[in-house]
């Protein structure tokens, strides 16, 4: 998968987990850009992303991400 394909799949996960089909994700998107992306929903997003892409993150990886693009780069490295 390339970055764009992962972005598309992540968008679907964000729609499901945050219960908002109008969310449009970009590589630069951060939690500040999405109202529903709060601390608890962030945890559920991580769990859903791990499950969907069959990957496991470390807590330091998660803390290092500044935006969606960096999350995608981390998935690509797995």
């Amino acid at each position: 998968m390339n970055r764009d394909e992962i972005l598309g799949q992540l968008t679907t996960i964000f729609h499901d987990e945050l219960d908002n089909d109008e969310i449009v994700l970009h590589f630069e998107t951060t939690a500040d850009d999405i109202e529903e992306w709060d601390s608890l929903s962030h945890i559920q997003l991580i769990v859903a992303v791990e499950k969907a892409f069959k990957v496991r993150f470390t807590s330091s990886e998660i803390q290092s991400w500044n935006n969606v693009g960096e999350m995608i780069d981390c998935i690509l490295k797995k």
Partner: protein
Amino acid sequence: MILQLNQKFQHQFTVDERVYQGFISIFEDKNLLHTSEEFARKKGFQSRVMHGNILNGFLSFFIGQLLPTEDVIILSQQINFKNPVYLNDILNFEAFVEEQSEAVQVSTFKFKFINKENKTVSAGKIQIKELL
């Protein structure tokens, strides 16, 4: 994490008069299916059907009181009701840790409640986070 993958838990709950009346007293759901023998029988049940959400109270007890740590918060809960529960039914509760995400300290339990006839009356999943 304190919880471990595949860790199992068991407990026995009874839907007794105190639990039944307590639920009605607090939440005021007096639907005839729950309060009228005659109505419940007309609808094909043996007796008054206990509120399904009483089981959610038992799940709250499980997460809050039976785990090896009290530092937990429920993130999500999904429950399916498969068979009716009647007054004074004794339910065997079984749960195990089906999935874990170490990075965010999340465990997902799969659970079921089984009655004395060995029928699963309810089953589902609970996702919890261990608080640091």
